[in-house]
């Protein structure tokens, strides 16, 4: 006979309270804003799904979303392969291991707004090291405040510099967990270095890479601080990513309703892509 009682709630309750305060309640406030219009003074008018409909039809939102996907796509396409290559090149044993690990971890320790400010100064055409080098020494016209292409190149380089290390460290963790016997067996089986990578290293890194891609997707898709400090979304709207646009609407124009609706759609997209990706990547393991 199973005895039934309600004691389990005591164990679940602390988590429920915590989640309620840090996720559910703030989220519901946003849901609340997203269906109303306000002109201040804490007066609200019911608007239903109007903000959602307007937003999904708006050119401005489409453009920002497009830029967001482009940005995330480019940095993933660079950071994941680059991270794997660096991890493969790192020593597995010996005195250089801690040196490499610390060097790799350094960029990630720098606060995000500092990263933005650093690159902003670095790229200034007349006094920045990079800007001066490009314009004066190499004679390449480079000014991210004028040219959208230069602005994009700069924020992408900045993100690659800041976050490739994460991919490196995760891949490296996956690599060092491979027992020596695998490499020895591959040697005896006559496998080429590419086959060792394809059939031993890559499969053993699959799980950590899934996590790395997920983290980099979510982080880069929600990126705000660094491009805001670096380009402020400009020139024009060239680097106005979703989150920058969101803050412009919410705080710049104080359109709380549309901004709330945008937040929810933004959140839903991040969640959906992450879920799809994770499900696809782990589909084989479940079998």
């Amino acid at each position, binding site marked *: 006979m199973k005895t039934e009682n309600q004691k389990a709630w005591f164990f679940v309750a602390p988590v429920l309270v915590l989640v309620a305060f840090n996720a559910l309640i703030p989220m519901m406030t946003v849901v609340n804003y997203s269906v109303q219009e306000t002109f201040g003074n804490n007066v609200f008018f019911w608007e239903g799904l109007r903000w959602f409909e307007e937003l999904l039809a708006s050119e401005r939102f489409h453009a920002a979303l497009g830029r967001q996907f482009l940005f995330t796509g480019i940095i993933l396409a660079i950071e994941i392969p680059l991270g794997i290559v660096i991890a493969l090149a790192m020593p597995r044993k010996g005195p250089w291991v801690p040196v490499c690990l610390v060097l790799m971890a350094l960029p990630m320790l720098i606060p995000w707004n500092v990263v933005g400010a650093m690159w902003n100064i670095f790229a200034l055409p007349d006094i920045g090291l990079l800007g001066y080098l490009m314009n004066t020494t190499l004679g390449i016209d480079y000014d991210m405040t004028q040219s959208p292409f230069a602005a994009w190149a700069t924020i992408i380089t900045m993100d690659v510099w800041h976050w490739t290390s994460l991919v490196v460290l995760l891949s490296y963790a996956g690599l060092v967990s491979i027992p020596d016997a695998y490499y020895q*067996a591959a*040697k*005896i*089986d*006559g*496998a080429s270095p590419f*086959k060792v990578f394809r*059939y031993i290293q890559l*499969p053993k890194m699959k799980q950590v890479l899934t996590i790395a891609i997920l983290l980099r997707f979510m982080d880069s898709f929600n990126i705000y601080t660094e491009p805001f400090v670096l380009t402020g979304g400009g020139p024009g709207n060239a680097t106005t990513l979703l989150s920058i646009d969101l803050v412009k609407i919410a705080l710049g124009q104080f359109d709380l309703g549309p901004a709330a609706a945008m937040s929810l759609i933004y959140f839903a997209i991040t969640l959906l892509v992450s879920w799809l990706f994770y499900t696809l990547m782990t589909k084989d393991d479940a*079998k």
Partner: protein
Amino acid sequence: MAKITLSKLRHSYMPHPKSAEDYALKEIDLDWSDGGAYALLGPSGCGKSTLLNIISGLLQPSEGQILFDGTDVTALPPDQRNIAQVFQFPVIYDTMSVFDNLAFPLRNRGVPEAKVNDRVAEIAAMLEVTQMLDAKAAGLSPDNKQKISMGRGLVRDDVNVVMFDEPLTVIDPHLKWKLRSKLKELHQRVKATMIYVTHDQTEALTFADQVVVMQDGEVVQIGTPVALFERPEHTFVGHFIGSPGMNVLPAELRDGGAFLQGHNVLLEGAITGGEGTPQIGIRPEFVSLGETGLPATVRKVSDIGRHNVVEAMIGEVSVKAVTEGVPPAPGSNVHLNFRQDQTRLYRDGWLATTGEKT
């Protein structure tokens, strides 16, 4: 397939070895004949895996040479030595099917696909994995994974030697026996030289025609399982092989005979000359209880199934005897008899009696 010769092989993991203790392998000279089934037996840390890795080429010896059929291969990398090795933990390529796993060593060497199919089918049939060929290797049970690892070793028909490095470590006990007899059967069918490294005497003795016993980086005896059991050339072999191991008893030499706690003990043959601490060695299986003989007091009796192991004290020395029937009670006085043709003298651990009677 080839005859393998190890000549003056020494290996140290230190860059500048000085004393003999710095060597993991101390001067090994060995011949493995073509098509033989060998076992390398010894306790953990005795250098057997080092020796195996040197033969396969994963490790470069500090000194000495390895010859395959008289050709020096010491400097060749593993893939050019044409050898196969099965590791302690099954190594399989997770993303490939069982078929692709087995075909991998052949395809890497550019073997035509038609021949690959034939060989894989043949090996799969031998290992009884034919029905799994299309399955993904990652999902197999440990014993099947280890079978696939073995299969990758056996699939090439031109291998010089197949080496097994404690391959049954991760296998469940009831499957160990099955895989072991499978290996023995495979050896008879493929006729390749096989070297099997283990610290488990049962595995070594059931698999091999010749067992090489190692201790502290040295080969102490090479022989058939029967020879190792019946006439150990070193007390280590006597002690390591057998359960319980050989009795090794402190002895005294005077008047041309051996004495144990003041009692004369008759040996199998004449004592050979030389120096060194004398010890008497006799297996518990050849010690019996009787009405007359060496007086002893029973200290402990352990039931090991079909037999009893009686541990009795002759003076200060404990002697084990394997007996059948009702054992004596602990504390009782008994008389022990040593079978003369199985009683030997050792000096500093090494056999020091001749087999012929004086």
